[in-house]
């Protein structure tokens, strides 16, 4: 038997007029962890969709060879039958059901001649499975009560509940905390020993070096290289992905914050589902004009809730005081916040940032319709002028202002969200994970936009889960843990370890 469990040979996939994949070769050894890297749009997902049967046999050229046999997958069921499973980035669990019920959904153990679900056995099997994987989750918990990270682990457990030989993980750590990532990697390593082969799609270079044995880089639908991890370093991978040397990943410009523009005092946000629980617990901080304030912390630390709360997105669930230019202000709704010159680029641009079915133009002007009105009537000419200005300024790649934003790539979508908020002329701009899921080039452009805004006297508050990004861009850093601010640091000689120290809750009196 060949050392390769899986080979994809000469895969070419064309969408009308565009080659998404061009003669891609991809070979995976039995029992290895194979990382698939590339910028967004490089063709990683397309390749995996072909492998899992989402794009059926016949819609692409080339061969899938599994254990020496050419496969014809007409649907996901076919690939599952051959013991290939895929865990997508988006979770597909039923929040109202328990962990055990989710894991064995449509696959439940039955009793009384197959008429009734055997709940005891179901829970027992789930418990066994979770134990074996070393996942510390009670199988009778409702999935909705778990954090996103634990849900991801449940999803992986669900995939492994079936007999799987090749497991594809699409950006598995995107929503995980450090400890959860550790758990996941430990599980992967153990399963690897049992002969399971992993294909991991990921952006995160550090993780590649932690977990991968082999790395294949795709760029523009072509295989750039496949190397074992020993032969690689970060720079080589980045170079392979973007096709050029990245001399500096962060265009860091040091700014000196001037006077305090926004001050938040004793701010608390309650959980809408559990009113006694505090998502943000008595937080106070200041934002200065002309600086980038980074907010770091692990997922679930309450960072998003903090900025959403300040922005007036939750009614009645918040307590605390907000001062703008030293004057106390009341923000009861996002429209109040916008009037006071605040803007918020949310974490989830598709969920609450954009109207995907509407044009770039309509999305850009939405929060500042006043500016495009003439005598109380929307003036299309003004709309065009404004949106054109921002599309050019932010370099949104689009054939037309009338393009639906749903058809844009992630990076361009993010730029449209930015355009919408820049059009409100914000004084304080909150950015929640502004570069999540967008490619390296677009990231860099967004960093430059941030620097330019700060030069013009805007205060930027950036939430980011990526430590290098926080260190690379911020002037000051707040670190949150379980709803509280655990550390406040001037960004001078700060290390990732130091931030992580606070982020895991080990507060120490350093700056006090």
């Amino acid at each position: 038997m060949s050392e390769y469990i899986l080979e994809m040979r000469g895969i070419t996939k064309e969408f009308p007029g565009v080659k998404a994949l061009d003669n891609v070769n991809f070979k995976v050894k039995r029992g290895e962890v194979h990382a698939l890297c590339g910028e967004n749009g490089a063709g990683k997902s397309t390749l995996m969709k072909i492998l899992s049967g989402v794009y059926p046999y016949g819609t692409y050229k080339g061969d899938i060879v599994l254990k020496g046999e050419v496969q014809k997958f007409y649907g996901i069921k076919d690939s599952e039958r051959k013991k290939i499973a895929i865990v997508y980035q988006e979770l597909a669990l039923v929040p109202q059901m328990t962990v055990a019920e989710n894991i064995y959904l449509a696959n439940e153990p039955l009793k009384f001649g197959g008429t009734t679900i055997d709940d005891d056995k179901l829970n027992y099997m789930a418990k066994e499975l979770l134990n074996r994987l070393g996942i510390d989750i009670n199988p009778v918990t409702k999935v909705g009560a778990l954090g996103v990270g634990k849900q991801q682990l449940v999803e992986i457990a669900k995939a492994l509940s079936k007999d799987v030989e090749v497991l594809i993980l699409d950006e598995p750590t995107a929503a995980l905390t450090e400890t959860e990532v550790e758990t996941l990697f430990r599980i992967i390593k153990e399963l690897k020993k049992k002969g399971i082969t992993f294909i991991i799609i990921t952006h995160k270079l550090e993780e590649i070096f932690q977990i991968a044995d082999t790395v294949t880089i795709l760029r523009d639908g072509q295989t750039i290289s496949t190397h074992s991890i020993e032969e690689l370093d970060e720079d080589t991978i980045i170079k392979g992905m973007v096709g050029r040397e990245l001399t500096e990943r962060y265009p860091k410009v040091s700014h000196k914050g001037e006077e305090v523009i926004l001050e938040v005092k004793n701010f608390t946000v309650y959980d809408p589902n559990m009113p006694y629980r505090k998502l943000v617990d008595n937080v106070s901080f200041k934002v200065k004009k002309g600086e980038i304030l980074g907010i770091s912390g692990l997922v679930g630390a309450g960072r998003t809730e903090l900025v959403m709360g300040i922005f007036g997105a939750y009614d009645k669930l918040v307590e605390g005081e907000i001062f703008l230019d030293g004057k106390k202000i009341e923000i009861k709704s996002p429209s109040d916040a916008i009037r006071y010159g605040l803007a918020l680029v949310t974490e989830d641009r598709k969920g609450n940032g954009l109207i995907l079915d509407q044009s770039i133009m309509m999305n850009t002007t939405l929060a500042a319709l006043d500016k495009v009105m003439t005598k109380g009537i929307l003036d299309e000419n003004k709309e065009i002028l404004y949106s054109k200005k921002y599309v050019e300024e932010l370099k949104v790649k689009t054939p037309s202002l009338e393009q639906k934003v749903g058809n844009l790539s992630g990076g361009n979508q993010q730029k449209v969200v930015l355009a919408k908020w820049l059009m409100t002329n914000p004084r304080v701009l909150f950015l929640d994970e502004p570069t999540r899921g967008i490619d390296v080039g677009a990231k860099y452009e967004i960093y430059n936009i941030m620097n330019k805004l700060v030069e013009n006297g805007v205060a930027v508050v950036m939430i980011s889960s990526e430590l290098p990004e926080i260190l690379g861009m911020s002037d000051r850093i707040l670190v949150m843990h379980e709803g509280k601010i655990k550390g406040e640091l001037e960004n001078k000689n700060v290390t990732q370890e130091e931030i992580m120290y606070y982020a895991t809750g080990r507060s120490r009196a350093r700056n006090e």
Partner: protein
Amino acid sequence: MQQEGVVQEMNDILTKKKEKRRVNIRKYTMVIALVAIWVLFSFLDKSGTFLTPRNLSNLFRQMAVTAVLAMGMFMILVDLHIDLSLGSLVGLTGGVAALLMYKVGLNPFLAVILTLLLGAVLGAITGSWVNAGVPAFIASLGGMLAYRGAIMGLTRGESIPVSQASFRFLGTAYLPKSIGLVLGVIACIVIILSTFKKRKDRIKFGFKVKPLAMELIYLAVYVISIMLFVLVMNSYKGIPVPIMIVLALALVLNFVTTKTRFGRQVFAIGGNKEAAKLSGINIKRRTLQIFIISGLMASVAGILLTARLGTATTDAGNGFELDAVASCVIGGTSLLGGEGTVLGAVLGALVMASIDNGMSILNTEAYWQLIVKGIILVVAVFVDIYTKKKSK
């Protein structure tokens, strides 16, 4: 990098093209369906009455109530709600208008004003329930029952006659032929001028425009349709007044939905409620407003219905809300929210009215009409969902 951008762009252009084609097909299917229905009925109808000016005039008069109601339902659907109380509200407001004149002895003008007010207030009540967290389906279902009960109580089950000529004018009169002709010509001129202005603007801003020949063909179709409509109506008694009311309301509402902040925000809410909220849109206020408009439209429909029939009955307007939903969906309003046009909803109403009218002319029994309309409602929604899903 560069290459990827290009690929992305090409992808975008392609998806856009595909989408354009799909949208166009949908737009045409509505018109094609309408023509097909008319052709079908004129074939089936051995007496040859369907396509006579007299019957077409009737058809348009009958369509008025559904069209007004569809316009009321339109923004509600765009924002992913539904108002099931509209049919009962047509009955109640029509009945109240009749009672105000017949029993209270108010003059028709005052009666109409009070009736409109009643519609707006009842719409506001439904809207308030929705804002308080009751699903629109339930809030309006409650209204559907309560309003029907109210009209039964008010009329004690009797029909209320209306004889005031000025009131009946709204539902039965015709525009003098000369005025109809003048309005038709004006409409054509406005359409021609605005098309060319828009074209010029789009070229100025570097947007794609249709080929000139295509634009001219479209224009010709519009102009011919308008003049044909005027001439056919004039060869009977002239353009019915209720149709003029529908057209006026449609123009106003079309303007409101496309050219005002209110309209833009309503569509934004339907497209993505969370994004709309975070963009500073007051969702509750907009929700209240669209329910007030739908209540208002229901009372207009009630007035038109009573004026046309000359009497208010307890079961007036029964089931009209579903005709309104069907009209909107046939006319391109998506039940997935955020999409549709007022003019489409009006055309959809014309389709529904044609089916009603045609089947009546064929002497089809009433139960068949219900069955056919039920099937059309479901199929129209299916087509909407299906085409949407395909595009995803």
